């Protein structure tokens, strides 16, 4: 029941918003629907907490601790983003950057995107997961090109083509997975259900599975922006409206990672080796290193944060690949903290861009004096994302590093080097933006305080004191994922 509600609310909201179009209350309906979605998410979490994993709708929908965890993150961040988006997009219209006519399908597509991600998380079928991932891409392509500038159209085209090609590889991987499963489970939809696949994993043909994983890795890795298939990500994240960058970076990447982790667990259980884990570690580490050095070279604030997302997805992929209880726990926690922190950075960064009418970091100055919420929000956000104590990211990165020292000591220096370079690069940039005198071209904007403050506070709180529920919940997931 709670599961159905969670999936239906955003879909219904998308339909309503498509009918309302640019009507006056579109942004408010969007916020209300997102709050309702979040409440349904909490309800579902409560159900799963009480009764354990559940199967609904003829085994097509499935919620266990892992998928519910990510569904709650998704619904929470989409809620705060909708609050931010209301203020932010209203400002964009006042500044004449966005004509109201263009806003027609913005909110409907936003809700469609959220519902596609939730379907991907809560379906039991590998095939439907693929369809939902593709739907999530398609619904955001037109949002990335929302400003209709030549560069935003270029970014959206790249996003469309590269993710389309990537996800096609994932479909081939899914077909191979089905081929391996069909021999054991017989034909029909049964053979694509996670619950069945995990049950018979030891009986499937290892050759096909290891080949399938390579395709799935490339496919979902493209969606996650892992190096070397990351080229769409910095463009799409920097050219779209800031609320869209926040959800792309904070949520979509997580969902793609979720798909990959599910495949990894299946394939490694079946092969009895660490084949899939090793591939993930390789991709993850490469992403951390390449993106860390790319952050150094950026001049555009959103592009820099986009590269930082690649870095963090790299860390998380690496940790899941490494496996073991500690690393998996750290990776799960890192997914949550990265979502919260990165979206708050895009919120604060978005307002900073509005204040200076420019995405160039060299033009953004004196944020703390101009608007303390934006300035300190950005400052604390960056401090959190680079993993400074007492923020939560420190805890998760520390756990991952500890596990690395234990499990793959020879890789530790590379990981540490990547983290250090990224931290130095980000911190150097944010200092000059937050401090200094207010430049003459800066002008005040109406800021959405709540989402920024809420996210940063949560990250800080988890760093200082982790609630017992969260701790138990993650231990439970790590128990069956490792």
């Amino acid at each position, binding site marked *: 029941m709670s599961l159905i509600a969670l999936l239906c609310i955003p879909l219904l909201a998308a339909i309503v918003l498509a009918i309302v179009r640019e009507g006056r209350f579109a942004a408010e309906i969007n916020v209300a629907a997102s709050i309702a979605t979040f409440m349904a998410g909490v309800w579902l979490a409560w159900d799963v907490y009480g009764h354990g994993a559940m199967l609904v709708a003829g085994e097509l929908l499935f919620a266990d601790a892992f998928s519910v965890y990510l569904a709650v993150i998704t619904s929470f961040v989409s809620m705060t983003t909708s609050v931010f988006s209301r203020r932010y997009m209203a400002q964009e219209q006042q500044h004449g950057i966005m004509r109201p006519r263009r806003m027609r399908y913005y909110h409907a597509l936003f809700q469609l995107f959220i519902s596609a991600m939730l379907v991907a998380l809560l379906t039991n079928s590998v095939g*439907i997961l693929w369809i939902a991932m593709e739907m999530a891409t398609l619904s955001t392509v037109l949002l990335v090109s929302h400003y209709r500038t030549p560069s935003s159209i*270029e970014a959206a085209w790249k996003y*469309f083509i590269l993710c*389309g*090609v990537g996800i*096609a590889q994932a479909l081939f991987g899914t077909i191979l997975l089905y081929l391996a499963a069909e021999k054991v489970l017989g034909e029909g939809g049964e053979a694509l259900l996670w619950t069945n696949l995990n049950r018979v994993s030891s009986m499937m*043909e290892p*050759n096909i599975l290891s*080949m399938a994983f390579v395709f799935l890795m490339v496919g979902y890795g493209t969606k996650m922006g892992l190096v070397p298939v990351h080229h769409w990500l910095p463009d799409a994240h*920097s050219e779209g409206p800031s609320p869209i960058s926040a959800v792309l970076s904070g949520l979509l990447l997580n969902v793609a990672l979720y798909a990959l982790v599910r495949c990894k667990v299946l394939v490694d259980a079946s092969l009895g080796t660490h084949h899939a884990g090793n591939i993930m570690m390789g991709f993850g580490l490469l992403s951390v290193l390449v993106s860390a050095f790319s952050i150094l070279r950026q001049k555009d604030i959103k592009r820099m944060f986009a590269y930082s997302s690649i870095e963090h997805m790299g860390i998380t992929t690496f940790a899941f690949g490494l496996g073991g209880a500690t690393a998996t726990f750290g990776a799960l926690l890192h997914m949550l903290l990265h979502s919260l922190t990165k979206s708050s950075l895009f919120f604060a960064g978005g307002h900073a861009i509005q204040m200076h009418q420019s995405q160039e970091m060299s033009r953004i100055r004196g944020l703390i004096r101009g608007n303390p919420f934006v300035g300190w929000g950005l400052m604390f956000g960056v401090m959190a994302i680079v993993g400074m104590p007492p923020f939560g990211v420190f805890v998760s990165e520390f756990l991952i590093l500890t596990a690395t020292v234990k499990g793959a000591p020879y890789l530790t220096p590379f990981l540490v080097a990547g983290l250090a370079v990224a931290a130095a690069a980000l911190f150097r940039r944010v200092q000059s933006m937050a401090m200094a005198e207010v430049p003459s071209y800066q002008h005040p904007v109406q800021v959405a305080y709540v989402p920024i403050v809420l996210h940063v506070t949560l990250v800080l709180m988890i760093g200082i004191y982790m609630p017992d529920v969260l701790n138990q919940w993650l231990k439970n997931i790590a128990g069956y994922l490792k």
Partner: protein
Amino acid sequence: MYIDFVHHINSFLAAFILLTAFGMLVQRRMSGLIFLFTWQGLFLSIHTALVGFLVNRHHLYISSALTLALKVILLPYILHTLVRRLKIHKEVETIFNVPTIMLIGIALVILAYHLVSPIRELSPPLSLVQPHIVTRSILAVALASVMLGLLMMITRKNAVTQIIGFLAMENGLFFAATSATYGMPLLVELGVALDILIAAFIFGVFFFHIHSNFDSLDVEQLARLKEVD
């Protein structure tokens, strides 16, 4: 006896699909390209129906009809209309190094055969006397046509051509699904078809956006966003 005959026809169709993939790789004219794409869709549709007949799975007839409607009628129609509205239907694209592209294509086919060789057996045979309906080489052909579509996307510079390459890739995937597993579950196939339909709508919108912003559909011009230095 007739099963044997159908089996041969199946192999022929696979060969034709590969042939059209190669044809698209070097076809310069826009209208000729869409024409080849239509043929590939038709071969695919017939192949799906034949496999459905051979293994007696009725949902394959539905997906065959779906392919016919989507890839033989609707998508070529949309593409033709777009190309005419954008006034590029007579355009002749320059492709450099046709022999090299062909050689790379052949190398990709060999690679595909090599990749699927470790797979020991495919879908279960219908009876003991009868050979596999689906041979390893058909899966290799499917993988090869996916890779040829990818190669086409890389070598071409026109947005419409890239999209046709993308759709040809999708054809290859669909071919893989029918031949390797007798088709994915119906629900999944319907979902994939829906996704393609939405993608068609989106690229249609994009052609106009690119055209009005850059005055042509040459994606070479989409190179503003790069690493700043």
